[in-house]
């Protein structure tokens, strides 16, 4: 476990929240366009796209509200869901492109977003764990 100072820990948290916010905006915009314009092309992929967008919004808000225990739990759930999402959808977009081979945050492990969606959940989990240890200590 990397030990960082209190100040730095809070700072990294802010940066994490900012990156989550940007992804939330990106995913929301994209899924909005997809659903409005061509939902019938790939209902499953585009529904997942919208779900991903909602999860990013939830994660952003929950990370920002760190001080409450409930928010921490919600953040953990959202980040875990994200990790599962990017791994499952990333794999499915390679294995079953006819169903999932449509651009979304999670397709091809987030290639359209510089693979940030694949890296972010790990950072989120590390940060949440580090904050819990801080609270416990």
């Amino acid at each position, binding site marked *: 476990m990397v030990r960082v100072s209190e100040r730095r820990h809070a700072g990294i948290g*802010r*940066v994490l929240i*900012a990156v989550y916010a940007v992804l939330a905006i990106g995913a929301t*915009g994209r899924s909005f*366009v997809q659903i409005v*314009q061509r939902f019938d092309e790939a209902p499953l992929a585009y529904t997942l796209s919208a779900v991903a967008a909602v999860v990013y919004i939830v994660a952003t808000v929950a990370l920002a509200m760190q001080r409450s225990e409930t928010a921490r739990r919600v953040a953990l759930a959202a980040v875990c869901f994200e990790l599962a999402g990017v791994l499952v959808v990333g794999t499915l977009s390679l294995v079953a492109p006819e169903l999932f081979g449509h651009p979304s945050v999670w397709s091809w492990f987030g290639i359209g977003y*510089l693979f940030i969606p694949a890296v972010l959940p790990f950072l989120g989990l590390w940060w949440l764990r580090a904050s819990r240890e801080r609270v416990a200590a």
Partner: protein
Amino acid sequence: MIDWLMLAQAIGLAVIGFAVVIVGLLRKPFNDWILGAAALTLLTLIVQAVASIIAPLAGAGPTGDLFEYWVYLISALLIPPAAVMWALVDKKNEWQTLIVGIAILAVAVMAYRMHQIWFVQVA
């Protein structure tokens, strides 16, 4: 719309974004230069928005989807003010510079996508 200008915007914003990220990683507090960088970013987007309204009227519409383009543009317009507002609310925190840098980089990526939608993509 002008092809090279839009590309230059994306590349220029990426350079500015990287510069601000580096300054942010050096833990320099938010200052007028950073504010200026964010303001410049927003200004290029406003110019782009005006051009995007006029160009289709003059018969030079995008090769891609205009609706998708505007979703990108409006999202991009929201990002620099949001980052700056957060920085101003919490001026003591030196991490805010890094956040503004990330915001500018995000706008640069979106500007590149908008360039693609307008000039490259055939819908």
